[in-house]
């Protein structure tokens, strides 16, 4: 068991190409992070997220020969998940709706977005800010989630979204600006 744990992602990819059973180890490693990522960006119920994730894993398996070892495997897997989610919403023509972020996840975005030093204790205020974040376009919300909830660095976000560094930085800055603007429009002053 320890031997398997010692294997790098790249080793596992090579082994998975030979045996689908070994792909189970990769899934084991990324099931949690990808589940949370897909849940955060789609804001769908857990059952639906699991269905989406199964499709994501199947795609990862089919594309194993496409994996470029210069990339972190996690970035590549997140990219496939991101693309699958974008396709999914395009097909169902729906935007993510419900609020499934945990409180600590909301706080991370709120703190990063509005540069507040103190803790927000007013529950009503937090609820209002959450509503503002949910109103953000998906591209802004996703980079904010990747940066401040998933705590990915710029290079990883570039690799996941396949966007240049400057574009990523712009999306993050604009996302934060949009959030501040929406808070001003709604007279939120916590």
């Amino acid at each position, binding site marked *: 068991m320890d031997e398997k744990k010692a294997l790098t992602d790249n080793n596992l990819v090579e082994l*998975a*190409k030979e045996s*689908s*059973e070994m*792909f*189970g180890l990769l*899934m*084991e490693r990324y*099931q949690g992070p990808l589940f949370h990522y897909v849940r955060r960006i789609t804001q769908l119920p*857990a059952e639906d997220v*699991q269905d989406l*994730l*199964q499709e994501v*894993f*199947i795609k990862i*398996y*089919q*594309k*194993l*020969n*496409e994996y*470029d070892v*210069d990339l972190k495997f996690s970035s590549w897997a997140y990219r496939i998940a991101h693309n699958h989610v974008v396709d999914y919403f395009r097909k169902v023509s729906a935007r993510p709706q419900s609020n499934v972020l945990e409180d600590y996840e909301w706080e991370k975005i709120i703190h990063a977005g509005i540069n507040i030093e103190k803790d927000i204790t007013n529950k009503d205020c937090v609820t209002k800010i959450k509503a503002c974040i949910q109103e953000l376009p998906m591209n802004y919300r996703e980079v904010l989630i990747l940066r401040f909830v998933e705590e990915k660095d710029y290079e990883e976000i*570039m690799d996941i979204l*396949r*966007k*240049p*560094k*400057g574009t990523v930085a712009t999306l993050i800055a604009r996302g934060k600006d949009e959030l501040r603007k929406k808070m001003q429009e709604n007279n939120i002053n916590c």
Partner: protein
Amino acid sequence: MKNLIQDTLNRIKNEQIVPEPRWKILVPKLGIWTVLGLIVLLGAIAVSVADYLLTQLDWEMPASMHQNVFVYGAIVFPYFWVVLIGLVVAGAFWGVRKTETGYRFSWLKIISVTVVGVAVIGFLMSTIGWGGRFNGMMMRDMPYYAQHTVTKETQWMQPEKGFLAGMIVTVSNDVIVINDLQGSAWNVRLNTETLVRPSVSLAVGQVIKIIGTRQDTQNFVASEIRPWMGQGMMGLGQGRGMMGADR
């Protein structure tokens, strides 16, 4: 919560899903790189022709035409090729961004590398004479292009403006007969004021450029004669009398 891992593995087994073969992944990548290569080649051709068009022109002409060099530059500028170079750079940028790792390069880096690459290959092509050949092909096969492109030939085939060029057919004391670049015969009259550039050889078979005044559809009075290649400025200019003494 269902067992995602086991369910996925079962699905892979039952549906006999396998990783896609490498060739299926490589073909589209190769396709993009091939398109990129062709785009850069097209850009290099555009550079070589633009270079050819600009360097073969007589940049002394504006002075002879009493024209501002900037106005002249605007008239002879190879707009078609420069627009094509711009499109090539934009196309290369788009193509690089479509590659697997293209997003990692800044727009400045992609554009700089493309411009330098296209320029280097283009000037190499120009050096070995491909610019002129491509331009010749275009002039021959595309009448619209030929109509709107200023070349050395079109510059020197404006007898109404005082510019004529052609091959010497016969030479006598005061008159030389030439066949112009379109095959029409002209009697070119020389007088004591005619400046014959030093490297001009007034012999049958030589191609010359003439500045002067058109008398009618067959007669032209020369005020200056230059060799077809270059300005013929080797040494001082000479008058008609001196030319006569040389002969």
